[in-house]
């Protein structure tokens, strides 16, 4: 008797699964309500300009000559992709991205390890000290590094004169390689704190029990690092790498201040600036911007596919 009743009648209290889905639905609705306004604003301030840029990129349009605006289809893209300057800029931008992100990852990881091992009492102080470069405005940091390396006000040549290749009259901004070296150095100095902070958050997420279990099993420090720590913070590493790569790919201020694009040090963002702001060619410049946007999207997709991580699942509940 009891069994048929159980199967026939709906249970007095909802089954756990359906109850949760009710709550999930409510949660989801609340989520939309909370995120909705922000989502709308994002659409307004990002989607609208992006679409406008895509539209503008199909025209031959100079800001001072609006009456001669003319639809040219994809020909702006043809001009850009067949121009060697575009490919040089892509090369320079990729070089800066790869070099800075690689160095920053290693340095940032080391700093994160230092910070996590630090005594609790001085940890906030150290963390703040490490973060200072990131708090400096990019233009300001670019100027200070430029002054440090420039011939008339710089100290680098006299401090490092004992190194081979550096003399009192070494003009760092006079050549492509040396200019890019200083640009990369500035970027690394400035944004390593950002990467190390993200990695610190990842490190803190690695469960201590796993470390202890590995220790009990006799794993060395290196083994624990490679088999326990790093696999467990894969998501944090990916987020750090992704954000920094996107950031590095859009580099502009440092190059603008230091070389002004001389000696083939133009980045893609600089090229977009030249066409849009300096030449006032809205059509051509928008096309460069759209291509920059596509490159950045491509980088994101590659990272997310490459790391095989679903970011929405990384709330700790795997």
């Amino acid at each position, binding site marked *: 008797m009891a069994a048929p009743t159980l199967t026939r009648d709906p249970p007095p209290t909802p089954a756990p699964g359906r109850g949760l889905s009710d709550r999930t639905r409510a949660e989801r609705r609340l989520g939309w309500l909370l995120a909705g306004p922000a989502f709308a604003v994002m659409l307004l301030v990002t989607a609208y300009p992006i679409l406008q840029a895509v539209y503008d990129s199909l025209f*031959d349009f100079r*800001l*001072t*000559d*609006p009456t001669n605006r003319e639809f040219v289809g994809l020909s702006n893209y043809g*001009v*850009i992709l067949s*121009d060697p*300057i*575009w490919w040089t800029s892509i090369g320079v931008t990729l070089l800066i991205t790869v070099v800075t992100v690689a160095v920053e990852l290693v340095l940032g990881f080391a700093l994160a390890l230092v910070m996590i091992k630090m005594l609790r009492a001085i940890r906030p102080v150290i963390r703040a000290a490490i973060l200072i470069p990131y708090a400096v405005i990019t233009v300001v940091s670019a100027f200070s590094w430029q002054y440090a390396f*420039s*011939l*008339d006000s710089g100290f680098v040549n006299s401090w490092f004169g004992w190194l081979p290749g550096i003399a009192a*009259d*070494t*003009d760092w*901004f*006079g050549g492509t390689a040396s200019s890019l070296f200083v640009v990369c150095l500035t970027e690394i100095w400035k944004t390593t704190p950002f990467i190390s902070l993200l990695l610190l958050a990842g490190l803190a997420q690695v469960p201590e029990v796993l470390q202890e279990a590995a220790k009990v099993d006799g794993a060395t420090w290196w083994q624990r690092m490679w088999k326990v720590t790093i696999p467990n913070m894969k998501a944090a590493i990916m987020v750090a790498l992704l954000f920094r790569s996107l950031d590095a790919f859009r580099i502009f201020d440092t190059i603008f201040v230091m*070389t*002004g*694009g*001389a*000696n083939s040090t133009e980045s893609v963002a600089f*090229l977009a600036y*030249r*066409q849009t*702001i*300096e*030449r*006032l*060619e809205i059509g*051509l410049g928008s096309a*460069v911007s759209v291509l920059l946007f596509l490159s950045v999207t491509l980088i994101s997709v590659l990272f997310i596919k490459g790391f095989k991580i679903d970011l929405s699942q990384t709330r700790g509940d795997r």
Partner: protein
Amino acid sequence: MSQHRRRRGAVVAAVVALLATLVGCGGAEPGPPVLTWYINPDDGGQAEIAKRCTEAAAGQYRIAVSQLPREASDQRQQLIRRLAANDSSIDIMSLDPPYVPEFAQAGFLAPVPQDVAARASEGVIRSAVEGATWQGRLVAVPFWANTQLLWYRKSVAAAAGLDMNRPVTWEQLIQAARSQNSQVAVQGRRAESLTVWINALIESAGGSIVTDPSVGNPEAIKLGLTEEQATRAAEVIRNLAAANVGGPALSTAGEDENVAAFEDGAAGFMVNWPFVWTRAKSGVEDRTLDQSVPQDYGAALYPEVVAGTPSAPPLGGIDLGVGAFSRNPALSYQAIECITSAENEAYYFVENGNPAARSAVFDDPRVIEAFPMAATIRDSLEQAAPRPQTAYYSEVSASLQRIYHPPGAVDPATAGQRAAELIRAVLAKKELL
């Protein structure tokens, strides 16, 4: 062009500009119309002139200044963007002469009334009027006119046996510097100052970068870059770099870096604007520079490219334009006439070191006292040549900078041809810049 700005002056100007903006914001208040004057940063002279003219207007108008970015190219960008959006807050603008045609062609300048134009070109240095003219009409009012001189250390020139009372050639300078183990400081940095140098060299050789701007069909622009004169000019650049007298920072040096090299004695010769003198004087006042240094300074006319052919020194300065969307164009031109009075130009020359556009000002005893080389500046202005006058100046200048930088890599045989091809391709929108 170059404006020397001391930090103190900039701060004062910024504060004044800020106050002026705050005052200007209260648009609803009764009183005379407020004219907004967009100024390039200086040592506070334009703000002071604005104040004087406001007083002189006796309630007819008030001038509020608003400061533009530091670099001339950034000033242009900001003004163009605003004017493209029909900004009616722009009454008076301080414009760098090479950009005047672009503003005029785009219809961003209110037409100069005929009587104002007549008065604005009378007694004003020829090259300054030429620089403010587009399509045969005066489209802006010359306010001050800048030019580069050949600055030299008297001791170095004497040791090299150069007679500086007579015009010298680039070739002589290079030899003199080499014999004295000194430098000839030129602006080799990839910036507008490089175009200034290239243009002065080509004009001095008797040529021109743009021979016909071909208004309305920019692709058909006629260029003089493949002419023999342009080759002569490129040879000067190559020779200077090859002789190793450009200094270690030849490819990165701008006006400020070069003055520093000239002050500390590394460079015995330099082509630069007259702010060099103001800077040396204030250096002595601030005790950062020994008195003997400016005493050793000499100023002569810009070097010749071809011996015996007078040089064509660079022309800079500021022209005043009235925004096409201004609500008070007539009053603005009235204010401009006050700003460009001989009295105010003399004040600006003496206090901020910016040479006047009016010839008579150079005879003012205050000017002669402050600038013993005032006569040389006027002579230089008389034979100065403007930079290429085209509505696409920015493209032309950036293309030249790309080909002629770094100076050490300039090949006179091909540079002109390459630059001409690039300019044509850029104007036809077939190439990036």
